[in-house]
């Protein structure tokens, strides 16, 4: 069963081809990593998956809903987190989560907020304005917002950017547990190769808007004869791809 089916997805801005006829599917429960350098098309792809951006051509089906015709039905079952999109800084953490609880139609909002506060260790600053939090605390709050509706599909744009190693590890551990417990599908754009190796079941390597390679982290490591994903990333980014090993 597929959580995402993308076919010939293309986005063009004038003369710039940001995403060039990509195809992929994400099985339910998978964690798909979108990898690529700056301008490779990762954020554009995520924006199209979220319905924020209308594709130039191609189709996206999310959780059985065609995003061109029925995106709001899909949006209610998915969520998104990015360090580059803020929550209102003058509202407290609890108020922010309550706003999104209403927007996503969450039943028993207060109980859900308490649950997330306990799981993500937000209790100490639940009633503090979001703007007064540290980067690590903000990331955990953003994650709590992304999980408020128990999403079946979670899109994460660099979820551990600017986090210290300890907090980053905590977030990754939490994502692993959430996926195992909920069966949620995750799409992850990241520049952190260790994170990709740890979390992703499949990786799509993007370059200049095209998928230039794909496979599980282990497959890619074997195929490129490398010990870590960082080297695989550099091989692809610098066009020093090796011949696939038989």
């Amino acid at each position: 069963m597929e959580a995402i089916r993308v076919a010939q997805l293309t986005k063009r801005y004038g003369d710039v081809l940001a995403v060039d006829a990509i195809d992929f599917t994400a099985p339910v429960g998978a964690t798909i990593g979108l990898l690529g350098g700056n301008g490779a098309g990762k954020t554009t792809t995520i924006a199209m998956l979220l319905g924020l951006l209308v594709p130039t051509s191609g189709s996206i089906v999310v959780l059985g809903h065609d995003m061109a015709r029925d995106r709001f039905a899909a949006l209610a079952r998915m969520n998104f987190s990015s360090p580059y999109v803020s929550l209102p800084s003058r509202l407290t953490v609890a108020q922010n989560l309550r706003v999104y609880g209403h927007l996503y139609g969450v039943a028993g909002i207060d109980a859900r907020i308490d649950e997330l506060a306990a799981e993500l260790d937000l209790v100490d600053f639940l009633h503090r304005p979001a703007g007064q939090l540290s980067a690590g605390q903000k990331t955990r709050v953003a994650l709590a917002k992304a999980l408020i509706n128990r999403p079946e599909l979670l899109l994460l744009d660099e979820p551990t950017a600017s986090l210290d190693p300890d907090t980053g590890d905590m977030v990754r551990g939490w994502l692993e547990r959430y996926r195992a417990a909920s069966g949620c599908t995750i799409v992850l754009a990241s520049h952190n190769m260790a994170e990709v190796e740890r979390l992703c079941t499949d990786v799509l390597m993007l370059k200049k808007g095209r998928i230039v390679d794909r496979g599980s982290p282990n497959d890619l490591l074997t195929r490129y004869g490398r010990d870590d994903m960082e080297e695989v990333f550099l091989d692809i980014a610098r066009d020093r791809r090796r011949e696939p090993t038989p």
Partner: protein
Amino acid sequence: MRGSFRRVWGLMYRHLALYKGSWPRLLELAYWPILNMCIWGFTATFLTARLGDTAAVAGGALLGGMLLWEVTLRSQMGMSISFLEELWSRNLGHIFVSPLRPTELVAALIGMSVIRMLIGLVPAILLAWYFYAYNLFALGPILILFFANLMIMGWWVALGVVSLILRHGSGAEPLAWGVLFGLAPFSAVFYPVSVLPTVLQPIALALPAAHVFEGMRGILLDGVIHWDHLLAAIGLNAFWMAAAILLFARQFHQARIRGALLSIGE
């Protein structure tokens, strides 16, 4: 329907929580209407003292005009600034990837516009009654229609401003404060449309506010309700609101094509 109501309430709650924690914001809502009311109220008092009964009637028209114009102004600013609050807090990305429909976004902005307008205007109306014995409600039940028409005009102007912000980003922000001041001379707030040069009168007559204020003066000066003006105001509001909704829908779709919903305001 219940889901839709919850989403609208969710966005309104976001703004109400902001006001709950900030008395300067609440004070700012009432500050300008009260200040305007004081200036025009003392002017009317002075004119009445110097020129007698005729000036008293004119003074009443001035105060009534000022208070009713504030309905349009505060409705428009309430809606536009609520949208800008989302833009300033870089929260639009989260909102637009939630199941909140664009129509629900507009409904929430309208809800906030009504609340902000009432917080701003009720103290000014009460103070006008206390300081100058000026009772706006003496206009009678017709006042409800005046209020409704002026509020609706505020909404479609605000929807136009929001559309321009979607199109041009933060460069269009100043319109949220200034656009109605540009329409004020044509809205016949303090003088009849006939005072305007002939060439400008069609512009005034295309605005619902001009018909409302002609109606208000008809009651205050002649004791007559001009239903033709009211019907014109209702018809024009329907036309302009439909045009503003189409413009908003188009600009929202264009913003989704351009990818502006994430980068807007940056």
